[in-house]
């Protein structure tokens, strides 16, 4: 339990290629006590922790994002958790997302229009950031003019400036959190006054055993949507396009075999795992892989390590767009399985399909040094160059 060299905590520093670190952890210290949390890197342990929410809770003690009440449904565990998922899951099914796909396709093409003739773009700034945020505003029925404000808030909560370690995290995020609560208070008032075909109206209209969600419950759901639904798709787009820019053979396969796209997205989710880990807290003294974990300790199941564990994935370092089976855990698993997974898949599918239809060949601008962000794997800037059509 001493070989900690090579371990870099992604909560502290972003990593361009984390897979060797995952491997080193799995092989040397599969249950690793870092300053922030006990890190699990074997798929079997991770799966157990994700399923056994009574032992490894996802409650407010697992992570502090400045919120004053539990985020719903992430920070509520079963059995209470189920009542919220019964309301929210129907709003995010693959079928419901397919209904939104034509509008997202238009949006993606409008974004590509803005830079296609230029022969270069900052993919992160001009595509990966605004796409999921605009889709989110449309989905919730919020004014598109609020885009820039949302981006400031999202970063304020996820990447608070001047955050010196996690100890000060609450103070750093709390001011931003209050502004987010205030904004959604007004948005909820507006939707109560004039309901329409969007997710916020559907949540207001929903009933649990005859009872509507309270104002606070609605706010706690909206807050979670903002931090869970925006950054994660940005991260995925950044990771995927860096990979595809650097692996022309894989990119060409998408062009030659368009039907492989859904499976390619699953494989890129596995390999890149844009959300590399999740946060839990031990509810009792437990032992995992011979390592004692005390009640109250934070635990981090490292999804990226699960997704490259040879116990599940033969040849885990091979990126094979036709990989089958591919039981990756990029969206987690167990009761807290990512609510937005089908929204993310739809956005990624449309983005990859339309971008490659319009701009099949591109590369990272020569001389670029990519800087990955901590915690969630985006890049600070992704300059791409391509022939003008």
């Amino acid at each position, binding site marked *: 339990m001493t070989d900690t060299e090579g371990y870099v905590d992604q909560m502290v520093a972003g990593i361009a290629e984390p897979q060797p670190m995952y491997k080193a952890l799995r092989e040397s210290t599969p249950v690793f006590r870092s300053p922030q949390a006990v890190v699990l890197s074997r798929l079997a342990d991770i799966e157990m922790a994700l399923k056994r929410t009574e032992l490894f809770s996802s409650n407010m003690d697992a992570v502090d994002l400045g919120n004053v009440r539990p985020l719903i449904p992430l920070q509520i565990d079963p059995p209470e958790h189920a009542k919220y998922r019964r309301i929210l899951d*129907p709003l995010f099914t693959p079928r419901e997302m397919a209904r939104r796909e034509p509008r997202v396709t238009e949006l993606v093409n409008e974004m590509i229009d803005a830079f296609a003739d230029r022969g270069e773009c900052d993919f992160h700034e001009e595509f990966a950031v605004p796409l999921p945020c605009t889709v989110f505003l449309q989905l919730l029925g919020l004014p598109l003019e609020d885009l820039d404000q949302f981006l400031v808030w999202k970063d304020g909560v996820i990447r608070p400036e001047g955050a010196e370690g996690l100890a000060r995290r609450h103070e750093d995020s709390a001011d931003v959190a209050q502004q987010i609560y205030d904004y959604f208070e007004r948005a909820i008032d507006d939707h109560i006054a004039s309901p329409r075909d969007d997710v916020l109206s559907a949540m207001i209209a929903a009933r649990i055993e005859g009872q509507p969600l309270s104002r606070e419950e609605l706010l706690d759901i909206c807050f979670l949507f903002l931090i869970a639904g925006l950054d994660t798709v940005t991260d995925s787009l950044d990771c995927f396009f860096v990979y595809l820019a650097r692996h022309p053979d894989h990119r060409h396969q998408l062009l030659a075999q368009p039907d492989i796209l859904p499976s390619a997205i699953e494989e890129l989710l596995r390999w890149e795992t844009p959300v590399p880990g999740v946060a839990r807290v031990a509810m009792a003294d437990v032992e995992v892989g011979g390592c004692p974990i005390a009640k109250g300790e934070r635990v981090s199941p490292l999804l990226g390590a699960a997704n490259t564990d040879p116990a599940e994935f033969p040849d885990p370092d091979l990126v094979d767009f036709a990989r089958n089976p*591919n039981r990756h855990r990029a969206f987690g698993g167990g009761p807290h399985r990512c609510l937005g997974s089908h929204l993310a898949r739809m956005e990624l599918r449309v983005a990859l399909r339309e971008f490659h239809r319009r701009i099949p060949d591109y590369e990272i601008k020569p001389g670029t040094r990519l800087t990955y962000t901590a915690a969630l794997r985006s890049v600070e800037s992704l300059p791409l160059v391509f022939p003008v059509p």
Partner: protein
Amino acid sequence: MTRVAVDADRCTGHGRCYTLAPGIFDADEVGHCLVLAEEVAGELEAQAHTAAQNCPEGAITLT
């Protein structure tokens, strides 16, 4: 002939089954798995195996 069963307590709505094997599975109103064909043969058997092997929760059993 293969019998298809889903453990509803394990299913959390990843949706892999009805995406990969739409002839056998469908989504219920919350996006969880619904078995359309409880007994399958021939080409559908291969689909059933693909779905079972790709379920992240291991909720599908084939007998």
